[in-house]
């Protein structure tokens, strides 16, 4: 620790700390533009000048590391003149168009000028003119005249994200921030540069000229569009959310968002959003539909008993809403048929659930099935940050495709579809064959994994011997759970932590509220429904045709159930089967907590009122309890937080039972179909993000494309077990020949109709795009 004095206050900080950060610890504000702790020192803006005793010149607080006995003055005549000079320089070519600038009122150039700047300008020469409101991409504008060239945006994209799509062009006073070759930036982290920009140079297109800081109200919230649960700040104006920004949380995150989360807030005002209800195919006042559903409930229970009613929770509901629904279903209705909507079959025991800190601490990360860039983007950024730390890190990938990217070097083991568990078990067997858990796991294991033996040994060695192992798992292969349990036993005290990357984003919270988390409960309900044992099926935010892995079963169940009721932000697929559809009050409209993939509870404050007749869960339940003539007092003070674990869900013991990994039944077909999550295709529509939705989301290798006669894009027919889907595909150079990737949840190409595995493939047409 280094001891130094800043403005007569003593402080001890670790060696290598910059004066600016040491001062911040003392609550002393040193103005900065270019410096950002996540990006490290640059020294470009010269705003943070301070006086260090015994140094001949003023020093920049952001680039000067502390030294023992250093005496720093952050004020004084020389410092004040230096800062005043820098601000005067920054303003000479600045357009001073604050009255029409979105940043006006929340701008560091305004704030620092007010605090430190000269009272009037002396510059009388012509100002340099540059591009105003030029495009970075569909979501971001650049005003080069307002730019102070702090380089935060350029450095973030280049060094932090690893996608150098922004650069400095020109030199000297002509320098501007621009995109490479004037092409729009495609990175899905591009929106962060808006938050990073200290002035009004990088602007959000959806927020452009929409509001001033005194028209808006900001609320701390949480993004619910994927299981990462990034902390956000929503801007509400006149009953609409008009902007989402990242919200840094000390010690936990810098507040980065992906573009999906930042710009996807407009689902709330989507034209298809339910704002009234539907009753037997007709639009109807929600109050009337609610009363009708209450009547049905009462009738079904009276005639068939409470177990003839089933509840499936999902979607974007808060933990508290799920708890109210659970309480209602159990205590008021009295049914035991409860389930959580799931789109993958895997399950992760709470005891194995890791946190993002496990990514920071890990010396080895294994990606099982999942490509974090596509499924949980900000986790990809966290991995990038971990890579930037100089400590060694091994990253392995076990999936039917290579998971390595320019931004994230992954030692990728490409499996056959459905053989991730087998490969992991085989690797484990090579490194710890003698362990009873491994013996149990690999009993009867088919050894033909088809992967390079060296690579397998390396993976096995890492799995067993890494000091801190963190895995990401997409949950598509349920057998992986057993591998993880065995792995934890083999590794004993060495941490083995897993981050589940599947949705719905709050599945842990809904589970915490009492709904069984495993898919079996849902499958049982659907089978019971199909077999006529369920009279009334209530889907709370769940869209099973889209989500459940076996679409045929869902369709059969829908046909067999006499009374199908749904609540949600949007009408579920197959809505013609539903007798009643009720509008949901969604994220940003209700207060509550969401549990993310870390099993961490995060509170969200509402920004706006629900639109139209959309209502929170409790009001529907209260109405139905009334119809059932039973008391229902939703426990308002139910607290999902735990005394011991704070904002994490209570810890549980890691299970010990290890099931053997079953041998794979070999199928034959033209190609192997596999699936995965694209966060852009998660079923929540966004008009703003339309340009980012891929027109040809399916992917095939160049080799297969040539075989099928497709040069870049095409439409192909994929069939399996007598079911067929049409998939628009594009060529993906990273894909292994013989594989076809179709993301989950595509409305027009539902992969859950055919399921993963061997498929027959035929070309329908080649598509030429401009």
């Amino acid at each position, binding site marked *: 620790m280094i001891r130094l004095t800043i403005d007569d206050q003593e402080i001890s900080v670790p060696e290598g700390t910059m004066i600016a950060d040491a001062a911040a610890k003392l609550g002393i504000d040193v103005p900065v533009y270019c410096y950002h702790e996540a990006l490290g020192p640059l020294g470009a803006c010269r705003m943070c000048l301070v006086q260090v005793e015994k140094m001949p010149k003023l020093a920049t607080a952001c680039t000067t590391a502390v030294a023992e006995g250093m005496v720093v003055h952050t004020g004084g005549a020389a410092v004040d003149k230096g800062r005043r*000079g820098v601000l005067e*320089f920054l303003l000479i*070519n600045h357009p001073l168009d604050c009255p029409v600038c979105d940043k006006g009122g929340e701008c560091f150039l305004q704030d620092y000028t007010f605090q430190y700047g000269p009272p009037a300008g*002396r510059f009388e*020469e012509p100002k340099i003119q540059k591009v105003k409101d030029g495009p970075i991409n569909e979501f971001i504008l650049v005003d080069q005249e307002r730019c*102070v060239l702090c380089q935060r945006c350029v450095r973030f994209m280049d060094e932090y994200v690893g996608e150098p799509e922004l650069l400095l062009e020109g030199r*000297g*006073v002509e*320098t501007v921030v621009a995109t490479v070759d004037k092409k729009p930036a495609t990175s899905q982290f591009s929106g962060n540069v808006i938050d990073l920009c200290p002035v009004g140079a990088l602007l959000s297109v959806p927020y452009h000229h929409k509001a001033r800081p005194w028209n808006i109200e900001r609320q701390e919230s949480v993004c619910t569009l994927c299981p990462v649960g990034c902390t956000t700040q929503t801007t509400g104006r006149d009953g609409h959310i008009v902007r989402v920004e990242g919200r840094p949380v000390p010690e936990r995150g810098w507040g980065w968002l992906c573009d999906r989360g930042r710009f996807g807030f407009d689902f709330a005002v989507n034209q298809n959003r339910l704002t009234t209800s539907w009753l037997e195919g007709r639009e109807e006042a929600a109050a009337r539909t609610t009363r009708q559903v209450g009547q049905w409930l009462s009738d079904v229970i009276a005639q068939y008993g409470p177990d003839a009613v089933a509840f499936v929770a999902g979607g974007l509901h808060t933990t508290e809403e799920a708890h109210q629904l659970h309480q209602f279903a159990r205590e008021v209705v009295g049914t035991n048929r409860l389930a959580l909507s799931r789109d993958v079959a895997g399950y992760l025991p709470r005891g194995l659930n890791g946190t993002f800190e496990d990514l920071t601490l890990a010396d080895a990360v294994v990606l099982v099935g999942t490509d974090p860039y596509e499924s949980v983007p900000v986790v990809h950024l966290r991995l990038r940050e971990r890579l930037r730390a100089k400590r060694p890190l091994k990253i392995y990938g076990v999936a039917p495709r290579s998971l390595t990217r320019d931004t994230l070097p992954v030692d990728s083991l490409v499996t056959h579809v459905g053989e991730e568990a087998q490969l992991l078990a085989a690797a484990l067997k090579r490194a710890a064959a003698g362990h009873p858990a491994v013996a149990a796991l690999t009993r009867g294991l088919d050894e033909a994994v088809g992967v390079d033996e060296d690579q397998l040994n390396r993976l096995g060695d890492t799995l067993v011997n890494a000091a801190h192992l963190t895995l990401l798992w997409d949950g598509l292969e349920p057998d992986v759970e057993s591998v993880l349990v065995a792995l934890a036993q083999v590794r004993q005290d060495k941490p083995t932590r897993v981050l589940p990357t599947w949705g719905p984003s709050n599945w842990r919270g809904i589970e915490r509220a009492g709904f069984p988390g495993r898919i079996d409960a849902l499958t049982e309900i659907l089978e019971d429904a199909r077999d006529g044992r369920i009279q009334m099926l209530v889907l709370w935010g769940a869209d099973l045709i889209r989500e459940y892995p076996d679409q045929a079963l869902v369709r059969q169940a829908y046909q067999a159930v006499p009374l199908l009721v749904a609540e949600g932000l949007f009408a579920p697929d197959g809505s013609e089967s539903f007798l009643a559809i009720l509008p949901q009050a969604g994220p940003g409209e209700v207060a509550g907590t969401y549990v993310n993939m870390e099993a961490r509870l995060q509170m969200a404050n509402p920004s706006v009122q629900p639109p139209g007749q959309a209502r929170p869960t409790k009001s529907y339940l209260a109405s139905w309890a009334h119809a059932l003539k039973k008391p229902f007092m939703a426990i308002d003070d139910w607290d999902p937080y735990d005394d011991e674990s704070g904002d994490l869900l209570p810890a549980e013991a890691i299970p010990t039972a290890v099931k053997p990994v079953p041998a794979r039944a070999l199928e034959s077909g033209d190609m192997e179909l596999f699936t995965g999550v694209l966060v852009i295709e998660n079923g929540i529509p966004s008009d703003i993000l339309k340009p980012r939705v891929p027109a040809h989301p399916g992917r095939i290798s160049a080799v297969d494309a040539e075989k099928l006669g497709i040069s870049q894009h095409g439409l192909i027919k994929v069939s399996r077990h007598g079911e067929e889907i049409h998939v628009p595909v594009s060529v993906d150079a990273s894909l292994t020949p013989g594989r076809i990737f179709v993301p989950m949840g595509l409305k027009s190409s539902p992969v859950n109709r055919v399921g993963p595995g061997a498929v027959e493939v035929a070309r329908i047409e080649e598509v030429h795009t401009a």
Partner: protein
Amino acid sequence: MNQSFYLLRNQEVPDFDQFDVYRQHGGYDALKKALAEYQPEGLVDLVKQSGLRGRGGAGFPTGVKWGFLPKDGRPRYLVVNSDEAEPGTFKDRELIERNPHQLIEGMIISSYAIGAREAYVYCRGEFLEGYEQLSRAVKEAYAAGFLGDNILDSGFSLNIFVYRGAGAYICGEESALLESLEGRRGNPRLKPPFPAVAGLYGMPTIVNNVETIANLPPIVTYGAEWYASMGTEKSHGLKIFSVSGRVNRPGNYEVPLATPLRTLIDEYAGGMQEGRTIKCVIPGGSSVPLLTPDKLDTPLDYESIVQAGSMLGSGGCIVLDDSVCIVKAAHRLVKFYREESCGKCTPCREGTYWMADILERMEAGLGDENDLSILMDVADNINGKCFCPLGDASIGFMVSAIKHFRDEFEAHVREHRCPLGAKVYDTANY
């Protein structure tokens, strides 16, 4: 005047850039001697004893710089800075165009001394001829076995790469040079770490000026004592001065340090052209303050020039005569820095723009009474507050010009015209 040639031997021997001619006059013998008679540490000591200081401008002792390399087994690089773009300086240009083999020989000796296996020359983009000459000379050196694997059976191997910049003055700053050499935008890097610890590709790197390295063969040949015998106690050896302006024989002159400025101008450069008198002299390239004629007897060594109020710099000696308008000269130089500022840090980027505009207006007869105080204040806001030395370099001449020729600046404002210029400014159409 007693001119002898150790660096600019091409001025003495015709076709000295040709490999055979160079060899006939003892070329590469110093290399043979260095490899045969010296251990690398011995060469570093030799350079330390010779008192050789960096000839690029800063004058840092070369041997001491070499001693900063960490001994941690990482690869090391030698980078030769041939991005000579300082107005008034053209010594490296003559060396690479007319005496390229001496630089290459010096690079091999230096690389051997510091343990580098790869060496780079970063050649200014505009020096096409120099680049071609160097590239040819490197090829010849390879062919003769002076480069490549196991040079002269010494077990020492070296590869030299000649790289041509894209035309930016800032890339003469060593860390910006390294950025550019690595293929990035030529912006200066944060120091520390210094290049000796983390330079090219993050490896320990020595960046030396062309002239510095060209000194190595004569030092090895004639010894450290010979070299140290020239100059003063702190400024040893030889220095090339590039003399320009209205002198009779502008050009490069190789003189022992501490030669008086007057001797350089009157004897070497042949004195002023007929009818011209000296108004002031910029002794060390455009980045340094000017010296007035009363300082002409200043010995040209690092310490004496500082005492006289300027710096030795790169040795670009610009002689301004009585026909020069000091405002116009200041404008021209500040404009140069405005064009060459990389734009990274605020004071340099904006300050040079502002100063150049004011000076242009003043020279056009459109100055007002506040301009001089604004100029001095802007210069003060640049001074010592920039990321790299370019900002400070931009104000050196202008501030000294205002100090010594304040009357002339004030006359421009007062008379709304340039008192020296024959041209009558058309203020209406300005």
